[in-house]
């Protein structure tokens, strides 16, 4: 399928009402982009994006470099404001970053406070939320245990591996008790084994908490493996090119899911899209 036909298909779907296409039809939208554009210094980065993410949905964004997927995430998390169009969160206009929306940055090494221990880094989110001092240690312990770092509370980020640092950043984000997680290529810099472990732990967390997840990645298989829906962006200017509903059964399995015929078909479709988009 070419990008053009994909766009047309999507346009038709949009007319029919994008909500109806998803597995969670009838669920309320948590995040809604309506004709969102962003221009930087006269250059259009994102052009008239329409996007609706349902509560509890896992949406993965893929696309060639320069398609504005990170920009889309920064818009959705309130770090950036659109130049045109509107973004609604839970039905109200998004005014900026929210405490109930946590952002997991790709460069975990830069997003942690090097002068604080693991416990101290998690504590930062609790301090921001005004959690009483006495209640913090127990929360911190539980959060570190949840991400598999129960015995590393007193370590500094510099004493931890990349995977552990990213786990720590996720623990800090979970301390916000988020209803949505914004993840910007969170596992991109990790080795394959660690990445798969963290993917599964993320799915467990999502299943347990019901959090909505907006996940940017350049790894097509990761997008299909994690997502309820995968959205492919086209570059110059960034716009929605393809939207794939992922019907793979949950819980997903690193071996069985990736071997499923449907997984391979989706992977092929997404791969063809990226190749045509890069051309």
């Amino acid at each position: 399928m070419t990008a053009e036909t994909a766009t047309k298909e999507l346009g038709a779907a949009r007319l029919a009402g994008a909500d109806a296409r998803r597995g969670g039809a009838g669920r309320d939208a948590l995040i809604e982009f309506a004709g969102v554009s962003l221009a930087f210094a006269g250059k259009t980065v994102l052009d008239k994006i329409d996007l609706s993410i349902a509560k509890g949905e896992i949406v993965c964004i893929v696309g060639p470099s320069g398609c504005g997927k990170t920009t889309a995430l920064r818009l959705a998390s309130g770090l950036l404001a659109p130049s045109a169009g509107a973004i609604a969160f839970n039905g109200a206009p998004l005014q900026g970053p929210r405490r109930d929306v946590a952002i997991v940055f790709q460069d975990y090494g830069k997003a942690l406070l090097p002068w604080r221990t693991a416990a101290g880094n998690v504590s930062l989110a609790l301090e921001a939320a005004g959690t009483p001092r006495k209640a913090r240690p127990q929360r911190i312990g539980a959060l570190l245990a949840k991400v598999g770092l129960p015995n590393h509370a007193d370590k500094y980020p510099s004493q931890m591996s990349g995977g552990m640092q990213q786990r720590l950043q996720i623990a800090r984000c979970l301390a916000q008790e988020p209803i949505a997680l914004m993840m910007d290529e969170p596992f991109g810099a990790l080795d394959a084994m660690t990445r798969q472990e963290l993917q599964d732990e993320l799915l467990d967390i999502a299943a347990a908490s019901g959090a909505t997840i907006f996940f940017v990645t350049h790894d097509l298989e990761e997008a299909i493996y994690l997502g309820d829906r995968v959205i492919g962006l086209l570059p110059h200017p960034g716009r929605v090119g393809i939207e794939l509903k992922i019907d793979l059964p949950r819980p997903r399995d690193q071996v069985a899911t990736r071997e499923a015929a449907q997984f391979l078909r989706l992977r092929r479709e997404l791969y063809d899209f990226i190749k045509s988009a890069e051309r």
Partner: protein
Amino acid sequence: MKVDARAFALPLALIVMAEIGARAHGPSDSLAPPSAIAAAFLEALSDGSLLIATRDTLASAFAGLLVGGAIGLSLGVALGAVPALNRALEAAIELTRPIPSVALVPIALVALGFGYRLEIAIVAYACVWPLLLLTRAAVAGVEPRLIEVARALRLNPLARVVKIVVPAALPRIFVAFRLAAGVALIVAVTVEIAVNPIGLGAGIMTAGQALRPELMLAYLVWIGLVGFALNALLVLAQQRLFGRAAQVAEAP
């Protein structure tokens, strides 16, 4: 700080040579043999004049360092964090900064008279700059991702400064403080030599005017030792306080 024992060989040899040379040369108004310098040092130490002078110089230097350092630090944080403020004050700062601190002595003397206040004011002026410039750079250079984390967590402005900006900039601010401490001592002694009749600088001047080169040189050696000890103390404090943070800041 470990120093190889062999590093002392050259200074010791020079001292011995100075002793021989000075004795061969005979009496002088500007030089004295090391043995005479040591004797003058012990004399000044035992009659208390050296300690009083040291107290006066260090008290003025520290007071000036605290006043000027506090002004420089707060201005530096504000200017580093608020680019608009920095642009507004940039010209004023660049025009004021080149004025040598000692050039303010005549004005300060008229305004404040002799004494501690004069010296503290001049030292404070000199100490504002290293802290202002380095703090401003350190604050402006805080990892942008950390500022985003602060935004994402919706930390209030005060918490942002206290929990993110200052700790991130602290290792570099402490380096600025160390530089300023050295500047404070130099400027304090300079002001004493120029006009102020207190402290180690005045001690040197008095000894020189009394044609006592051995006492003058004893003061000189002592000032060197005080400066060395001050810096060593601050380096030690820096390593103890920021050992980890400094390592991390330099890691890729």
